[in-house]
Every structure is written in C-alpha cells, then in structure tokens.
C-alpha cells in the first residue's frame, strides 16, 4: 500500500514546515473524533490512536510520535488529567507505526495483523509499569480489571496480571485501527500523500 510513499525521504527527520504544523493538530483531531465516534457507536475499541497511525504513515515516525505526545498532553489539559501519563505510550506507538510502515509491514493483510500485534505488545509493555505505579495494575475498564482481579486472586504476579489486562484491551483496538488506517491511507489522493511527505 505504501508503494505510494517515496523512499527517498529520510525516516528520522522532521522540519516544522506548514505541512507538519497542520498535519500534527489534524492527527490529534482525528484521534479525538474517532474516539468520540467509537464511544457513540458503543464499540469495544477506542480508536483513539487512528490519527497517530495516519501521521506516522504520512509524515514518518517522528511526526507520529509528536502527534501522539501532543494528543495526550492536550487531553490531559482539557478533558482527562491522567492521559498525560500515557504520553510515553503514544510516542512509542507513533515511532513503531512509522518504522513498521517504512519497512513495508502495512503492505498485505497478514503483515498488517502482525504489525498490529507488535504495536499492541509495545503499547502494553510501556503502559503496564504506568498502570502499576498509578492504579495498582488496573486499567479502569471493567472487564479487563475483572481478568486482573481473577489472575491476582489466583496468585499470578501483579505485573503479569496487569500486562494481560492491558494487552487484552489493546490487541483488538490496535488490529481495528491498523486495518482502518491502512484502508484510509489507500483512499487518499496522491497529491495529498505527496504534500504531507514534505513533513520530512
């Protein structure tokens, strides 16, 4: 799919061009609206990283990382104060998506599934210590926390229970977001893709 992309753009470079300073806020906006829409449809996923995925695909890992970071900081200063803590996770998601996309992991359906698994594992690995520090290992999602309670009740270590709690919630979300982002990227006109490639 990303054959539309241009391989001559350096991966780890970003300039604050007009394309960048409009792509990043738009990515944050997409995260917000996608999350609101998923909540409206009562879907069992958040979709709150769709914009970060698209920013990474269009602008590279750094654009994705900045989008993820900005998203969590703005969220924490407007709607949900504890979101700021998870800005590290969002940075990691942005970097991973950008890197995997550049390596061609979003080319086929099987590759996208594999990419989503990698992203979910990374997201859960980074979020788990944060969940333990701030929430004793829970995530705040009732069915995930039920699994956490059952595992801890059966003498599993807290970090294993917390990781599984987080991973279970992340995996479905990241699979849906990865396929959706790849589909949207494929629908974008070439002029738009070329324009945002200027980010790098």
């Amino acid at each position, binding site marked *: 799919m990303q054959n539309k992309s241009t391989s001559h753009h350096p991966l780890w470079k970003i300039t604050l061009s007009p394309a960048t300073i409009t792509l990043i806020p738009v990515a944050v*906006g997409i995260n917000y609206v996608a999350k609101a829409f998923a909540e409206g449809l009562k879907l069992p996923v958040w979709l709150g990283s769709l914009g970060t995925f698209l920013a990474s695909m269009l602008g590279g890992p750094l654009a994705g990382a900045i989008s993820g970071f900005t998203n969590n900081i703005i969220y924490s200063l407007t709607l949900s104060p504890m979101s700021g803590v998870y800005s590290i996770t969002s940075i990691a998601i942005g970097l991973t998506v950008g890197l995997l996309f550049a390596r061609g992991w979003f080319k086929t359906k099987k590759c996208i599934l594999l990419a989503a698994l990698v992203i979910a594992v990374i997201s859960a690995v980074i979020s788990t210590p944060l969940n333990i520090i701030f929430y004793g290992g829970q995530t705040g999602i009732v069915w995930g926390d039920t699994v956490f309670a059952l595992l801890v009740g059966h003498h599993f270590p807290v970090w294993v229970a917390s990781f599984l709690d987080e991973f279970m919630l992340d995996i479905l979300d990241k699979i849906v977001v990865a396929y959706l982002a790849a589909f949207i990227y494929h629908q974008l006109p070439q002029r738009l893709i070329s324009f945002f490639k200027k980010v790098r």
Partner: protein
Amino acid sequence: MTTLTWFQRFDPVTKLLLILCLGLASFVIPTLTINWLLVFILFLLAISIGKLSSLVKILSFSLFFIATMIIVQGLVNPGNHTLLWRIEILNFYKEGVNYALLLGSRLLTIVLTTFFFIATTSVTENARYLESQGIAFKKVYMFISVCYILPQMMANLHQIKLAQRARGIGQQKSWLYRFKMLFPILVPLVVKTLDQAMTRAIALQLREYDNPQRQPQPLIHHYLLARFNHYLLSILIIMLGGMKVWLLIQK
C-alpha cells in the same frame, strides 16, 4: 481596569509546575491521612474557582476508578492479611483497601491540580504566554490549533452522519454492523479533514506565518512573581524527585 481573581495572578507555567510539584509530593508523602488532607485542601481550592459542573464531570471517572480499586485491591492484593469487613462471601482486607486509598489520593491530587489549570487558563492566555517566554510561534500554533480544529471536525462529523442517515445507514445492534459503520462515516471525514489541512497549510505559507518580524501578542494579565514562582517550584520539584529516588533506594 477589572480586578483579577487570585488564580488569574498566576501564569500558565507556574500552574503547570504546580501540577508536577504536587503530583510528586503525593508520591513522596507516605501517610494516608496527610495525602487525603492535601486532597481536601485542593478540593476546597477547586470549589472556590467555581465551574462546579466541570469539576463534577472531571471527578466522576476518577471516583468510579477509585471505587473499583478499593474493591479489587481490598479483595485480591497480594499483601492482604488483616480482615477489615465481610460482605456475604467477599472478604475485604485492610492492607489492600489502604493501598487503594493511597493510590486514590495520588490520583485525585493530580486530577484536582490539573482541574485548577483547566478551569483557570484559556487557550489564548496559554498561547500568548508561551510565545512571550520565547517559544517559537510555529510550536505554539501547532499546540493551540488543535483547539480550533476540533469544533470544525465535529461539525464535519455531524454533517457526514446526517448525510449517511439520509441514505438509510442507521444504527443497528450487532457489533459487526457497527464496525461496518466506521467506513461510510469515518473514512470520508478523515479524508476531508486531511484535505482541509492541506488547504490550511498552503494558506499559512501564503500569509507568511513564520515571518521573523512577527511581534508576539501582549499578555492578557500581569502575573505575580512569575519568575520567582518558576524557580521556587523547579527547586521543589528537584528536591521531591530526589526524595522519591532516595526512598526507593532505601526500600
């Protein structure tokens, strides 16, 4: 000239440093009682600002979360051994409940200090102050433009939803159908938003948004001891961070 309220006398950076400082303090204070006393003081401060509906909204999720933590930790915390109370077949233990209350007090400290920032600082005030502190306009613009893009995106979402409803795409109960709904609504919205972003980027370039001659906008308020507050809070943050590291090493 209008009289400033007490919270308008503090600049946005002081408020942000205060969030970090009090958040760290709640992690250093080992006593449950002092932590909840801090929460109580912050709660009184939050009430004094007004905006009670926003306060209730922001606290409701945290309080629900604390309730689930008390249940889960009270029941299954690995350190549990002193029975506190029993409800039917469920045994709640003191150690788990205390641990959940400690975590809860830290959570509320962060939430209430952040509420103080949210309720007392406007986007314009933030932007002007950050620019006056020497942060490049490009970065400030990137940060604040989200606040202007969101209403536009929500309006687009509403428009697309209406159009799709008119074509007969409604809400159904099955999850599969609801997942399918993402495509006719979310995909056009994202494509349209990216297209508008491209137009905005071109307009920005044409208007010379990064003109080096640009003068920052004047500040909205005259802030009280801004520089002194920054130094004082920064020193406190370093000290609290050091204390936390020391406490961890002592363990």
